[in-house]
């Protein structure tokens, strides 16, 4: 007894209690049930608000008619491949998505680099740049629509007062204009993300590189950019998704015009659904975009992860 007592391990060394047999199974079941009960609201929310609608859209995409209740097989998908309006809106959207993604990365990183310096008032600048992102796209759209109005807008008034020629921005360069407005709106957010990434890079790397004779450009290309790869990947994935799903800019600012030059894909889908009342076709177009977004995201993640480095 005493020997047993003396050789017994101290409580800290004792192996963890592992219930065995039926008791263990019962405990596991209780853990599992409890876990699922906690997860149930999330499952219910996502199931009801995301997966059920997605399933419904996929089912609808094989139907036609004003109520989307007439089976049409693959006709909607065949039609999409032959629809010049869809091709146009897809092209417009890809250009829009690419420009807003590249612009968001370049401008966001540039601003983050500037505002990562010890400048007076940098906190105020950071906050000011973030304000447009916190504002509704509807308000941004109306604001810029009024600013850009060729006859009564303030921008042309300023140009005119300066003796410069006035412009009809929304007629001559409509897509570039809504790209610029989108960048103005979103760049503050990407700046904040890059700022967080920059502040996560240890100062010692720069000091070591400087000691080794690296200049500012070399430090940027060899240290900053590679170590920001995860941030850049996140920004690019999010920007591509939001670019391909953009809607408000066309709906509020240009109405898709002039002559479909800003007919963003989702705006086109919206019109197919709610103007032409062709919900089956709109569902097929939506599902095709879903596949495109999944494809873009997978490719980006694969390419991005290949470029990740660690020092």
């Amino acid at each position, binding site marked *: 007894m005493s020997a047993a007592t003396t050789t017994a391990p101290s409580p800290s060394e004792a192996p963890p209690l592992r219930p065995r047999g039926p008791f263990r199974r019962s405990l596991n079941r209780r853990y599992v049930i409890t876990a699922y009960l906690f997860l149930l609201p999330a499952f219910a929310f996502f199931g009801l608000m*995301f997966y059920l*609608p*997605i399933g*419904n*859209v996929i*089912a*609808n995409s094989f139907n036609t008619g*004003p*109520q*989307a209740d007439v089976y049409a097989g693959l006709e909607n998908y065949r039609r999409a491949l032959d629809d*010049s*309006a869809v091709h146009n809106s897809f092209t417009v959207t890809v250009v829009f998505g690419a420009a807003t993604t590249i612009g968001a990365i370049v401008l966001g990183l540039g601003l983050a680099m500037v505002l990562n310096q010890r400048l007076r008032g940098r906190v105020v600048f950071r906050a000011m740049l973030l304000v447009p992102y916190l504002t509704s796209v509807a308000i941004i759209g109306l604001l810029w*629509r009024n600013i850009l*109005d*060729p*006859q*009564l807008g303030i921008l042309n008034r300023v140009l005119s007062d300066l003796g410069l020629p006035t412009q*009809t921005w*929304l*007629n001559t360069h*409509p897509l570039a204009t809504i790209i610029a407005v989108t960048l103005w709106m979103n760049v503050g957010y990407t700046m904040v993300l890059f700022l967080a990434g920059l502040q996560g890079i240890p100062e010692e790397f720069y000091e070591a590189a400087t000691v080794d004779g690296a200049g500012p450009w070399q430090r940027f290309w060899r240290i900053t950019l590679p170590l920001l790869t995860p941030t850049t990947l996140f920004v690019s994935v999010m920007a591509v998704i939001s670019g391909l*799903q953009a*809607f408000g800019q066309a*709906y*509020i*600012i*240009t*109405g*898709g*015009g*002039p*002559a*479909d030059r*800003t007919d963003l*894909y*989702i705006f086109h*889908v*919206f*019109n197919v*659904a*709610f*103007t*032409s*009342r*062709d*919900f*089956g076709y*709109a*569902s097929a*177009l*939506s*599902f095709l*975009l*879903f596949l495109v977004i999944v494809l873009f995201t997978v490719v980006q993640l694969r390419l991005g992860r290949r470029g990740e480095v660690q020092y």
Partner: protein
Amino acid sequence: MAGLAAPWLSSCAGAPEDDASTGASGGSGGGGGGDLTVYWNAGHAYAAYDKVIAEFQEEHGVTVNMQKYQWDDLRTRLLSDLASGNPPDLVEESGGWVQEFATTGDALSLQEYVDADGEEMGFPEDWQPKTISRNSYEGEVYGIQLHLTCTMLLYNRAMLDAAGVEVPTTWDDFLDAATRLTGDGVYGFALNQDRSYSWPWLLQNGVRYYDPDGGDLLVPRDKAIEALQFQADLVHRHQVAPVPTPGTDYSGPQKLLSAGRAAMILTGPWDLAPIQQTSPDLNLGVAPALANDVQATVQAGTSVFIPRKAKNPDLAWDFIKRITALDVEKAATEEAGMLMPRLSWAEDPVVQENERYAAFAEGFAYAVDYTEDLRLTGKSGEINEQLYNTLYQDVVMNNTPAETAVDTFVTEARKVLDA
């Protein structure tokens, strides 16, 4: 995800199949507590209607839930509700929806109500005849015209007087006037970015949107091309009008006229109140529509209809009767300058003694419901609101030759009609 959301609204499961409220007085939805849900245009919330609503609520013991939207949002909401089987009790529509929803079985036939109460309310005898056909389908009435409007030439009288320009009556006169009025930061004319404002020109050139016999669009084609090119030339060749800005707002020309930056615009009575409010000193004239081959303009205006699955159709019908009464029409005209469909309204001193209202009312004689034939094909949404919109903007904003743009439009529209 967002892309998947819009069409899903169409498919909200569980739309009841057998709760269609049919029948006239004595049918379902007789009132006695609850709500009467009404979808209304946000710009038509007149005090004259508030008075009707208050009386209606008191008499029936119900609450009228007036939900006000801009047209595009109203349509989006309505289609979602129709798909989910939970539509409002009454809808104000922007023109053309009644027949659209009648053909799809979403609108309730009002024929039994009309048979029972028509004589008492003066329907259809006291309504402008054109407003009956545009709200009927297969011989039955599905909607009642609420407002009746048309597009006329509004002008700044002081500007025309200062330039010694007579009010134009033909296209040639008009171009001459616009040319003489242009200068010093003022345009002689301002085109609207909205495609529907292009139609007075096409109608004046004798163009039909759709010929149901031949199945052709924009006939005669050369006349349609001429009318569209004339509008583009005002902007790009003669430079007597600014290039319209694309968008969804149709108040651009009104703002230019109010600001003294345009001397003439084409618009309807809905712009009278904004002009009066923003520029009370502007000496505004309303001229009859121009003539080229014929004198013509666009007939517009809103109607009200009851969705087939409305929960309170009887109450909704009673609301229609009250809100279309002659006294209410006159009060709305005096309040907001809106024009009305009753013949007795057009003859009333309220209208006849007002130069502007009278000018619009005279236009009813030659105003045309230009989309009626196209609407009955069930393809009006895609052809008129998408393809024609592209055509108009391509010609007037992008300065694409009208002949090229019309060819593209007709090719695409035929595909839609044949589908």
